């Protein structure tokens, strides 16, 4: 009785053991790499903030807003804005000089078409944001000061809208 019952359940027991071993191995691997991954992430954030704020000495993260310091003085803020581009979500790091002016932006990740919408992630498009007032962050055809890219309207609008809307939101929460 016991033997035939065991034989019936053996496949299930076998797979369960295999899955158990697999999960153990994965948990172990993940815990080893987690520390390295976190430090890589931090380094990446630091590099990007340094690109926007060359004078930065350190930053503090408070409620999703990076407060940038040069020695003891606050020189600006930064935050992540998420836009809806042609190919999906775009992550944009926005730096603010003060509550009205943008210091610069970096498109961290995007899924736009190579050679077309992808140009919103590069100069000269991103250079336009340097020193721009938040209220002017809109395409020229819509009352703003940003020159769009002819065959990439959706990508441009995604960036522009994300930057403006998130900037206004964050500035409100700063006050």
């Amino acid at each position, binding site marked *: 009785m016991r033997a035939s019952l065991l034989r019936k359940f053996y*496949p299930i027991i076998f797979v369960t053991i295999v899955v158990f071993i697999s999960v153990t*191995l994965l948990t172990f691997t993940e815990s080893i*790499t987690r520390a390295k991954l976190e430090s*890589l992430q931090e380094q990446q954030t630091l590099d990007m903030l340094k690109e926007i704020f060359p004078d930065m000495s350190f930053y503090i993260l408070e409620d999703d807003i990076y407060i940038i310091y040069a020695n003891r003085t606050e020189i600006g803020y930064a935050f992540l804005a998420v836009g809806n581009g042609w190919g999906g979500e775009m992550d944009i790091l926005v730096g603010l000089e003060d509550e009205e002016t943008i210091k610069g932006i970096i498109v961290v990740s995007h899924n736009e078409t190579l050679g077309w919408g992808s140009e919103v992630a590069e100069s000269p498009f991103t250079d336009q944001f340097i020193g721009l007032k938040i209220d002017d962050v809109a395409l020229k055809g819509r009352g703003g000061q940003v020159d769009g890219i002819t065959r990439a309207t959706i990508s441009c609008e995604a960036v522009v809208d994300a930057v403006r809307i998130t900037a206004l939101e964050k500035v409100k929460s700063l006050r």
Partner: protein
Amino acid sequence: MSRFLKEFTKGIVISNPVFILVLGLCPSLAVTTSLDNALGMSAGLAFVLLASNIIVSAIRKSVPDIVRIPTFIVIIATLVTVVNLAFQAYVPALHKSLGIYLPLIAVNCIILSRVEAFASKSPLVYSIADALGISVGFALALLVISFFREALGTGSLSVFGASLFTLPVLGEQPIVIFMLAPGAFLVIGLLLALFRRMGVIKSE
């Protein structure tokens, strides 16, 4: 020993996974935009294939037939996740440029078919030989394809930052289509035709 060599060399030419078995074409097309990617992908596949073959061959007598495929898939997927985490932590630039094709090794036909058709029925030593041979064959195929795609599509070749050479005319005006999907198909198709003409691939 000679059987070991035979199984090993089989994977390189006679049963080359890309040009003969024509398996795993999707990642081969997507990942051959540069030599670095080709090497990275080959390394990932080699690790997963070797480890899967070893494990499956070792437990092949104890696996109940009904749960054969689920067991293999769990093993392969676990190994791919380990490779993915490792790449993400230790070679992040390569990981980013391989994108989703690294995790997609889990459903790469090459792995499942070698595990199912060979490792589950063969002794450990020959399973290792087969895995090594197929991995080398895959790597060579990918390297050849990406050699042409990168050279024609960007006008220069570089391996992990070290620039190898820049072509005179193409350096200024590269043929960008080779970096995109149609170019990949063109290169693979032409290489297949070339190998067939040379007699490396026999007609059936």
